[in-house]
C-alpha cells in the first residue's frame, strides 16, 4: 500500500477534516464493504464445495484409475538378479549376471543378437533352467514352474506374438484376467467384461476389436493384445521381448506412451533393437554382450560409451 493511499484511508476514517465525505457516503461504503465480505465468503464456500466435488469425483474415478495407475505397487517391488547363469550344452548364454531393476523403472535391455537377452527372460520365467538367483518382491523365481511364477506377479510377452487365435480379443483378455478365479467360477459364463478389462481394452486401443478373433488381428494389434493381457493379469514385473518389432512409428509412439505409463507403478524390462524407441522412452539401459553386462546407465551414458557404440550401436550414431 502506498503512503498516499494510506493517508486517504486515514482521513476518510476520521471523517471530520474533509467535508466532501458525507455520513451517507460512509454508510454506503460500509454497506459495500459488508457486501464484498459476504461475496468473498460465498466464493470461498463455493470453492470449498467445488473442491469437495472434485474429491468426490476423484473418489468415484479412483476404481478405474487404480486399474492402471495405482495397483498398490511399492518401492520394494523390485527385481534382483544375482549370479544368473545359463548354459546350453556347454555354451554359456548368460554368465554370472547381476542385475537390479527398481520399482517404477522402465529398463531397456539391449545388446547384439545372441547376447542372451531373450535367454534372461526365459530363465526368469521358468522356460530354461538356470542357476543363481532371481528374486521379485523377495520371492525366488528360479526353479518354479511358469504358471507359479505368473502368480507372483511376473508377466512376459514373446518375440513372436502368441495369443489364442481362436478366441476373441475379449476372451483372450478374460483368460488373462481369470487365472485367479476360484474353481467354482470356472464353470460360470465368462460374462460381461469387467471394468478392469474394459479399461485395458481402451488403453490398448482394442475396444473396437473386442469381438474379433485374435487370429485375424494384424501383427501390431496382436502385440497390443499381448501387452493388454499382461496388464489385466495384474503383472508387476513386465518382461517384454521386442514389443514394438513390426509396428509403425505411430504405433510405436502409442505403445511407448502406454508402457511409460505402466512403468510408473511397475517394474518393466524391455528388450529392443529400436534405438529411437529406446531414446524416447527408456529410464535406464543395460547393455548386454555375450551373456555379460557391458554397460549400464542412462540413455546418455550408453550413447557415449565407446564400447557400446563399437559393438552395438555402430554407424547409427
Amino acid at each position, binding site marked *: 500500500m502506498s503512503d498516499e493511499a494510506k493517508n486517504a484511508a486515514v482521513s476518510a476514517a476520521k471523517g471530520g477534516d474533509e467535508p466532501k465525505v458525507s455520513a451517507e457516503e460512509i454508510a454506503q461504503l460500509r454497506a459495500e464493504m459488508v457486501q464484498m465480505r459476504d461475496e468473498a465468503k460465498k466464493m470461498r464456500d463455493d470453492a470449498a464445495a467445488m473442491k469437495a466435488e472434485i474429491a468426490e469425483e476423484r473418489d468415484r474415478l479412483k476404481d478405474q484409475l487404480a486399474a492402471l495407475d495405482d495397483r498398490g505397487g511399492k518401492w520394494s517391488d523390485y527385481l534382483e538378479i544375482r549370479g544368473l547363469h545359463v548354459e546350453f550344452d556347454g555354451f554359456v548364454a548368460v554368465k554370472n549376471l547381476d542385475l537390479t531393476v527398481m520399482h517404477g523403472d522402465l529398463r531397456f535391455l539391449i545388446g547384439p543378437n545372441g547376447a542372451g537377452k*531373450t535367454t534372461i527372460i526365459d530363465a526368469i520365467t521358468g522356460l530354461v533352467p538356470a542357476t543363481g538367483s532371481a528374486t521379485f518382491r523377495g520371492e525366488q523365481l528360479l526353479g518354479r514352474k511358469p504358471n507359479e511364477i505368473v502368480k507372483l506377479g511376473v508377466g512376459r510377452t*514373446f518375440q*513372436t506374438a*502368441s495369443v489364442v487365435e481362436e478366441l476373441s480379443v475379449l476372451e483372450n483378455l478374460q483368460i488373462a484376467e481369470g487365472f485367479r478365479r476360484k474353481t467354482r467360477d470356472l464353470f460360470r459364463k465368462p460374462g460381461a467384461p469387467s471394468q478392469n478389462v474394459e479399461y485395458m481394452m481402451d488403453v490398448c486401443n482394442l475396444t473396437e476389436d473386442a469381438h474379433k478373433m485374435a487370429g485375424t488381428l494384424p501383427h501390431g494389434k496382436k502385440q497390443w493384445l499381448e501387452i493388454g493381457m499382461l496388464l489385466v493379469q495384474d503383472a508387476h514385473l513386465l518382461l517384454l521381448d521386442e514389443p514394438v518389432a513390426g509396428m509403425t512409428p505411430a504405433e510405436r509412439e502409442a505403445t511407448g506412451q502406454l508402457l511409460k505409463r505402466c512403468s510408473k507403478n511397475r517394474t518393466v524390462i524391455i528388450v529392443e533393437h529400436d534405438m529411437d524407441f529406446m531414446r524416447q522412452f527408456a529410464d535406464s539401459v543395460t547393455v548386454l554382450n555375450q551373456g555379460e553386462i557391458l554397460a549400464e546407465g542412462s540413455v546418455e551414458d550408453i550413447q557415449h560409451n565407446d564400447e557400446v557404440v563399437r559393438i552395438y550401436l555402430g554407424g547409427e550414431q
Partner: protein
Amino acid sequence: MGMFFPQIVAGLSNGSILLLAALGLSLTFGQMGVINNAHGEFMMAGAYTAYVMSSIIGSRTVALAVALVVGFVVAGLLGLLLDVLLLERMRTRPLDTLLVTFGVSLVLQQLARDIFGSTPVYAAAPEALTNPVTIFGYSFSAARLFIFILAIVCVAALYAVLKLTPLGRQIRATGENRDLAEVSGISTKKVDHVTFFLGSGIAGVAGVALSLLNSISFNFGTTFIVQAFLVVVAGGVGQLKGAVIASFVLGLCQSWIELPTSASIGQVAVFLIVVLFLQFRPQGLVAVRSRNLA
C-alpha cells in the same frame, strides 16, 4: 542260467523286428508328420508280394531276393498313391492323417481279403533260413538272424541317405518348414512324394522279411502297428537314432519280462515302460530342442 544268452538273442531279434516295422514310420511320421495307420497294410502288401513271388519263382532264394525289391516298389507305390491322392491335401493338418489312413487300412485289409481270400497263406522261405544256425553251441533261427542283419542294413542305408545326400537334406528341410523349403528352390511336392515312397517302401521290405516268421493274411500288419508307433514315440519323432535304441531296448525288455511272467504281461509291460519313460523324456529318447514356443 542257460537261458541268458538265448534270451539276449531273442530280445535283439525282437528289437530288430520292431525296428524294421518302425523304420518307415519314423521317416514318414518324423519328416512329414503323417501318422500312417496304413503302414501295417503296406507291410502286408510286402508280405503278399513275398507270397506271390514264392509261388511264381522256382528258386526260393531268388524269390526272396526278388520279393525284397518288388515288395519295396509295390508298397512304395501304394504309399505314393496314398500321398498323391489324399495326404497331399492334408499337409496342414497332420493329426487328421491318422484317421484317414485308418480308413485306408480298413479298405486295404478288405481288398486283401477279396483278392487273396481270408485263409492265411504262406511264403516258402529259402531252405537255409528255415533251419537253425548254431552260435556258441546254441541254435537260433536263421530267419531271425537274417532279419536282424536286414534291419541294420536298412537303418544304415536310410541314415546315409538322410544325413549325407542332398536328397536327405531336402527331405529334412521340407519336413521342417515346407514354405521355407519351397522358397529355397526345393520342390516340396516331389520331396514329399519321395519321402513317402521311401517310408512305405521300407514297410514293404519289412513285410517281406517278416513273412519269414509268420503266415500272411489280411491282418498281417495289425500285429505290428501299435508297437511300431510306440517305438517311434519312445525314440523321439524323426530321430533314427532314437528309433534304433528304442526298438532294441523295448525288444530286450519284452523278452526279459516275459521270461519269468507271461507273454501278455510282457506286452503290457512294454506299453507301461513307454508311458513311464515319457515322464522323463516327453519328447522321446532323442529330443530335439528348439526355441519356439510350440
